[in-house]
């Protein structure tokens, strides 16, 4: 019996890596690929469902005077729209729905992952890396569609003397190629490390108590509280950073000559 949580609910895994394990809920193989609906898929469904429910309720009211949830939805709209406008310019607003989806998809996954027994879908490189690759593909695709070969002017900044170009262009190319890797890795590593840290501290509390040092287990327990708060901040911040960097990269696609 596989519940969409890691292990059975009453069981507490003492392995900090256990929480990242994927197991199938519905086995399905198509075209030679294992496309099973896993615990990761289930929690992705939950997080997207919650995001959709929140934004759906916020948008559906459409009142002239917003109530709390509508106000929150409109604040989110303004927040992301301002970010896109100030980073990528007016033209960047074309990508507003994409950036908005990206932000809320990651935020939802990170936040849902903060709940005990839930699976953090963004703690897997396959997910964050795929999102990063999609971002870079959109940047390159739009950049070439919009500017033609002029897009590659991104690698050769104006007003740089020719000898310096020999050094600068390879550096620019390498830094550009590193973008999808760093973008995906940042989110993945933050989520992974944060959850391992929380788990280790929690295990430490139980282990100390089990070893008859209940008084000492207060130390990791009290430490766990601010760290949990910090992880909530990181969950938001990483979603924001991902969306912000997407905007910065989109700006390069729109105006390659900086």
């Amino acid at each position, binding site marked *: 019996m596989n519940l969409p949580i890691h292990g059975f609910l009453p069981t507490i895994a003492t392995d900090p890596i256990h929480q990242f394990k994927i197991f199938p809920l519905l086995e399905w193989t198509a075209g030679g690929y294992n496309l099973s609906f896993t615990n990761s898929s289930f929690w992705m469904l939950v997080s997207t469902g919650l995001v959709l429910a929140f934004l759906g309720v916020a948008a559906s009211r459409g009142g002239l005077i917003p109530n709390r949830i509508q106000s929150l939805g409109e604040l989110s709209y303004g927040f992301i729209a301002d970010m896109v406008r100030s980073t990528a310019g007016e033209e960047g607003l074309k990508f507003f729905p994409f950036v908005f989806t990206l932000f809320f998809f990651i935020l939802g996954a990170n936040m849902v992952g903060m709940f005990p027994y839930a699976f953090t879908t963004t703690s*897997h490189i396959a997910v964050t890396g795929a999102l990063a690759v999609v971002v870079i593909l959109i940047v390159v695709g739009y950049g070439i569609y919009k500017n033609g070969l002029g897009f590659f002017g991104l690698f050769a900044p104006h007003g740089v003397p020719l000898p310096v170009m020999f050094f600068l262009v390879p550096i620019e190319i390498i830094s550009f190629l590193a973008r999808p890797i760093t973008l995906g890795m940042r989110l993945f590593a933050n989520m992974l490390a944060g959850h391992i840290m929380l788990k280790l501290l929690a295990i430490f509390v139980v282990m100390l108590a089990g070893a008859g040092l209940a008084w000492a287990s207060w130390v990791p327990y009290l430490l766990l509280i601010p760290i949990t708060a910090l992880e909530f901040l990181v969950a938001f911040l990483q979603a924001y950073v991902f969306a912000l960097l997407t905007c910065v990269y989109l700006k390069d696609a729109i105006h390659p000559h900086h």
Partner: protein
Amino acid sequence: MSLLAFLAETAAHGGEAVKAPFPAFDPTWYASQLFWLAIFFLGLYFALSRFILPKLSDTLEKRSNRIASDLDEAARLNNQSVEAQKALELRLAQARSKARDTADKAREKTEAELATETARVDADLARKLETAEGRIAKLRADAMQNVEQIAIDTADAMISRFGVKASKADLKKAVTTALEKRA
């Protein structure tokens, strides 16, 4: 990575976790993860870009339009009230000058009437005074006439007591002279 591997190894209770690759890098589920990521991300993107975001932006636009039109309406009403105020002041000034005219006219009329009446009464009084003075003069003349006669009679009576006789003409002459001396 070495730390994670270490953690995985030390914390594992069975042999399974040691043999299996680190779950976050386990390629077994890459296809499944990518497939479901595509489904959910595209689903969310579709729902947001088609329905939710247009609705939100519509609401925001409607609100800002409403606020702008309300502000316009407020400005229009404000102008209206300023104009009404001006009209009121104008009317007030007109009414005030009209009232002053009316008051002036009334005063002039009253003064004229008063002057006429005063003149009439003065003339009347002067006439009456004249009549009265005439009568007083006549009465005084009559009285003087009587005084002369009384004086003559009195003088006649006095001297006759002294046994002297005087003619009427002499008496009259003496009395007249005496009266003239006193006057």
